[in-house]
Every structure is written in structure tokens, then in C-alpha cells.
């Protein structure tokens, strides 16, 4: 018995390795070609709309890496894209489509702010209070995000409800419900805008390296730590192994004793935990309070594109997140310095996703142009 299951595991190992690693180079090629093609189409559209595409292109470069401020802004956006992208990648890798990262991100960030604001009066001010509050706020985000993601997991595993649809619905619900709470019960009556109370002054992350008040080296370290942690869990632990095999080889995974239902729930929870953590970093590092979530930025949606561009690999998410952070950062620059409507960048993101979805297109292009190997 143990011999048979050992052989089965070896076979599974080999299969999973092949699926995951064999075509890394090809995937990188497809990701780069997708991005280049999408950007090229973006430039054509800029020209068609009557603007100067070369000027726009130079705005993109200057706006993302052209100055220390631009770099800090790029890194700030990239931190969010990498964290939310990892959350998406974890689920996609296990064959579960978590489209609900935006909702989990919102719920997590809101939980952070509410926890910190309500605990602050009972704790001492200053350094110790700061650390305790940050930890408590992050814990709240992780729990909230995890639970909010576990729900569609449970509905899929035990109710058969399609997680693509339920997570999208839960996004709408999170945004509407948190918006209602921010406007009502948790709103700051003294603020003119719709938002919660601010976090106490002494709560925040230190920013010794950058002038940007909304970028902290701690935030970057958290990002790197999460990427490393998730990469380790998926590649080196039993849980990660089961998760990935049940994504690629469902029947084989259940043959080797993996409970498919439980796997779906724990995968979603894992993904939601990361999304909640991203929400905490956003709330603490960038916002300092919580606003109506319909205006916090579509990090969780763009994260889908980030993850796909990275072929759902937790480490690949870093360059993909940097690219998206750069685009978003360039967007802020474009908005101030040119007439080109910034929504174009969202459209380009859509094109990137569309092309990433169609690897055959690029294989054919490669064949036609003689760039690919003879076997493709």
C-alpha cells in the first residue's frame, strides 16, 4: 500500500513539476509579448485620439521612474499590486478563481482601521502602543479577509456555488456594506468627507528611506516577506503541494487522500488572508483612515491581471506588480501633465490580460515570424 501510494506521489510530483516548470521561458516570453503588444495598441489609440504618442510614451517613463518622487510612488503602488497579486495567484494556482480579492482587501482594511481606532483609547500612547495597535489591526485584517474568502470557499465546496460568480457578488456586497458603515455608524461626524476617524498620530510605519509619507520601508519588507512566505508554502510544504496538485490534477489529488472540499476552503482562506493583509498595509501605510470603498482603487481587480501576467507564480508576481505599479504611477503623472484621459491605462491593463489569456496567438505569431523554435 505504501509502495503504491509512494509511486503515485512520485508520478504526481513529476506531473506537477512538468506542468509548472517546463515552459517558464515560454511563459515569460508570452507575458512580455502581451505587455508590449498592449502598450503598442495603447499608443495607437493615443495617436488616434489626437495626442502625440511619443510624448505619451515619455510621460509613462518619466511618471514611473523619472524622479525620486516617481520611484517612491511606483513602489507604493507596486507594494499593493504585489500583495493583492499574490493573493490572487495563490488561489488560481490551486485551480480556484478568487475574483473576490477586492472585497477581501476592503473588508480587511476596514477591519484594521476599526480595530485600531477602537483599541487606541485603552492602550498607552507612543512606541509600545503603536506596535500593539499595528499588530492588532493587522490581525483583524487577516481574520476578516480570511473569513470573507472562506465563505465563497464553503459555498463552492459544499453548495456547489460557482466561486467566480459568488466572489464577484461578494465584492459588490463588501463595497456597499463597508460604504454604508463608513457613512453611518463608523463615520467621523467632524469630517467633511465620508470617512472614518483618523488613526492616532503615533500609529504608523516609519519611513526612514523615502520622503514619501505614504511609503514605508516596513511596507516593502512586509511585501517581500509575504512573497517569500507564500512561495515557500506553495513550493515546500505538504499543504502547498496538495493545493497545487488539486488545482492541476483534481482526481489524482483526491486519490492521494486530499479532501477536495476542505482544500478549496483552505485555499480560499489562505488567499483571503493575504488579501486582508494587503488591506491592512493599504489602510495603515497609505490612507490612515478608511473612506468609501468605491473610491479606494481597484487593486483587487488589477491584481487578477498581475497574477495572470506572472502565470500565477508567487515570485513572478513581483516583476508583474512592479510593471503595474509603474503604469499606475505613470497614470498619476499623465493625469496632471497631459490631456490624455488616464482611463486609457485601465484599458491597456485589459488588453494585457486578454493577450495573456491567448498564448496560442503568440505561438502562432512566433511561428509566422520564425522567432519560436521548430517544435512550437
Amino acid at each position, binding site marked *: 500500500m505504501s509502495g503504491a501510494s509512494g509511486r503515485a506521489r512520485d508520478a504526481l510530483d513529476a506531473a506537477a513539476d512538468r506542468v509548472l516548470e517546463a515552459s517558464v521561458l515560454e511563459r515569460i516570453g508570452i507575458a512580455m509579448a502581451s505587455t508590449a503588444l498592449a502598450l503598442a495598441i495603447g499608443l495607437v489609440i493615443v495617436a488616434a485620439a489626437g495626442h502625440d504618442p511619443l510624448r505619451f510614451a515619455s510621460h509613462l517613463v518619466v511618471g514611473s521612474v523619472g524622479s525620486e518622487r516617481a520611484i517612491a510612488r511606483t513602489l507604493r503602488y507596486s507594494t499593493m499590486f504585489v500583495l493583492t497579486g499574490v493573493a490572487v495567484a495563490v488561489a488560481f494556482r490551486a485551480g480556484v478563481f478568487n475574483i473576490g480579492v477586492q472585497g477581501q482587501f476592503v473588508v480587511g482594511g476596514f477591519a484594521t482601521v476599526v480595530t485600531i481606532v477602537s483599541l487606541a483609547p485603552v492602550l498607552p500612547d507612543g512606541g509600545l502602543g503603536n506596535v500593539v495597535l499595528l499588530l492588532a489591526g493587522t490581525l483583524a485584517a487577516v481574520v476578516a479577509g480570511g473569513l470573507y474568502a472562506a465563505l465563497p470557499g464553503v459555498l463552492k465546496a459544499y*453548495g456547489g456555488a460557482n466561486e467566480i460568480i*459568488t466572489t464577484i*457578488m461578494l465584492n459588490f456586497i463588501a463595497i456597499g456594506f463597508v460604504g454604508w458603515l463608513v457613512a453611518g455608524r463608523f463615520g467621523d461626524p467632524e469630517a467633511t468627507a465620508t470617512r472614518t476617524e483618523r488613526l492616532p498620530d503615533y500609529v504608523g510605519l516609519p519611513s526612514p528611506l523615502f520622503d514619501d509619507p505614504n511609503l514605508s520601508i516596513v511596507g516593502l519588507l512586509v511585501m517581500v516577506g509575504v512573497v517569500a512566505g507564500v512561495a515557500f508554502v506553495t513550493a515546500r510544504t505538504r499543504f502547498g503541494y496538495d493545493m497545487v496538485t488539486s488545482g492541476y490534477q483534481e482526481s489524482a489529488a483526491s486519490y492521494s487522500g486530499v479532501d477536495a472540499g476542505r482544500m478549496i476552503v483552505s485555499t480560499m482562506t489562505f488567499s483571503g488572508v493575504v488579501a486582508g493583509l494587503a488591506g491592512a498595509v493599504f489602510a495603515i501605510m497609505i490612507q490612515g483612515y478608511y473612506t468609501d470603498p468605491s473610491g479606494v482603487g481597484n487593486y483587487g481587480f488589477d491584481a487578477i*491581471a498581475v497574477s495572470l501576467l506572472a502565470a500565477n507564480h508567487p515570485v513572478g508576481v513581483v516583476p508583474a506588480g512592479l510593471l503595474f505599479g509603474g503604469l499606475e504611477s505613470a497614470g498619476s503623472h499623465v493625469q496632471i501633465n497631459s490631456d490624455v484621459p488616464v*482611463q486609457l491605462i*485601465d484599458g491597456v491593463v*485589459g488588453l494585457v490580460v486578454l493577450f495573456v*489569456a*491567448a*498564448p496560442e496567438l503568440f505561438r502562432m505569431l512566433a511561428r509566422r515570424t520564425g522567432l519560436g523554435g521548430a517544435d512550437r
Partner: protein
Amino acid sequence: MSVGEYASRTEVRLGGLALAVAVAFTVLAVEFDVPLDRLFTAGFLSRSLEMATPIALAAVGGLYAEKSGVFNIGLEGFMIFGAFSAAATMYLLGGETPTQGHVWIAMVAAVAVTTLLTAAFAVLVIRYEADQIVAGLAVWFLGLGFAPFTAAVLWGSRSSPGLASIDPIAFGQSPLIPLAGLVVAAAWVILYRTRYGYWIQAAGENPEALDTAGVDVNRIRYATVLFSGAMAGLGGAVLLAHAGNFVGTGDTMVDGRGWIAIVAYLFGNYNPIGAAVAALLFGGLDMLNVQFQTVGIDVSARLVNLLPYVAVIVVLTAWGKTRMPDAVGEPYESEE
């Protein structure tokens, strides 16, 4: 017939949903001491019908595509493109004071534009075997990005100025409601009563057999995907023709209706009439807000607006095991 089989019948599902909605109404009415006849007015029915029309159109298109084996999850995006193209056409033809003729031309133009875009989507999904889920999501992103972008180029703002909405015909009803009714009825007849309808079903259930019988599977799939995009575009255009101006802020004026459309046909068990009834129930749920305000029930509009989404989750969970066609999501390649 086992209980499970019985419960999967379209009539039973719809009856269940209708019952749940009715119970929710009654509880609310009793709780807030409001006579039911003030909630269920003729105006409520007409607003619900109007709300349901775009959803029903997109749902009928989506179910055709999925019946034939292609999950068009991009309905929301195609609706956005439809609504925007209609607004842009209306503006380019008639400026800020378009006539009724312009409204109709705008709807035709919107269908033409979305059909063209859908053709590109269909080629990617069918010819180049793109992942259907991912490509569909991409269509959504494209709509969310390019429609407001083009709006900003055209109007200097993500939303259009006030254009024109369609004039009502008899009983103050929009003529687009019976038009959608016709589309739904025709879709039902074609799917269940014609040879082409059986081919569509076979393309999704057993493409090999259809291929063996000498029918080109991918040709059928191209046709249904094009139809789904055209109907989603029409749905978006109808939405615009009812509203009278394009809103490109936030999730745009389409605001999740494409997603609700997918659920509507899942709920109607891929039956066009079932999908339309489900769309009507969702439309009614959506319009509860207005009813609550008129009878003076003080519930946050923001919360009531969430009801359709909650309903979708409840529905999917209670009847989650909708049997999808066997070959959905799988590209088909002929052996020859």
C-alpha cells in the same frame, strides 16, 4: 422522479425564488406596518420590467453561448461597450438634443459595434483557444477602461451630457420591453423547436457527435458567441435608451447587470424564458428602493441595493448544482 431531479426543474427553481421574494416583501411590510397594496403598484411592475429588460437580453445571449460550449463571462464588458456606443452614436448624430430616430439608430449602431468586438473575442477564444474565463474578465476590464476613456475624449468627462431617452408607447411603457419579450420568445423557439437549436445544444454537450454528423462545431460556436455579444450590446443600449445619458464613473452605469445576467440564466437553467423570469425577479428586487421610499420605509438605499447580489449568492448556493453543458470551456478541434 427523484427529489433532486424535481428540484432542478426550471419552474421549481423560479417558484422557489418568487416565494422567497414574496416572503421577504411580506416580512418587511409587516415589520414596518405597510399595506402590501402600496408596495405592489402598477408603477413598481413597470419599473421592474424596465430594469429587467437589459438583464434579460444579455442573459439570453449568454445562455446561447454557454449552451454551445463557450462561457461568455464578458457580458458585463460587452454591455458597457453597448451602452457607450449607443451614447456616442446618439451624440455624434444629434448633439445634445437627439431625436427619437437617433435613439433607434444609436441602438442599432451599438449592436453593430459590440458584434464587431465580440468577433475579435470569439476568434481569440475559439480559434486561439484563449482561456474563456480570463478572456471574459479581460473584456470587462477593457469596457471599464476604454468606455470611460473614449467618453473623456468625446465629452471631456467620463459621463455624457444629458442625451435623449426613448419615448414610451401605450400605457407609458417603453417599447423596448415588448421587443425584449419577442427576443426571449424567439430564442426559446429556436433553441428547443428547431434543428439549429439542437445543433447548438449538441455543440455544448457532445461536440464529437455533432462533428461526426457533419456539422461544423466551431461555426455554431462562432454564431452563438456573436449572438451573445450582440445581445449584451443591445442590453447595454437599452439601458442607455431608458436612462438617457451615459455614466462612466465607478463601475459605469451597467453596474454589475452583466453579472446578474449570467446568474439569471444559470437560475433559469439555460431556458430563455426561465432566464427572463429570473431577470424580472432581480429587476423587482432592484426596484424595491423606490417602493420603500414612496411608502416611507426608512432603509438605507445602499443596503437595499445589495439585495440582488445577496439573492444571487443564496440562489447559487441553494441551486448551485446547475448542470452545465458537458463541453463548456473546452476548445474543440476537429480530428480531420
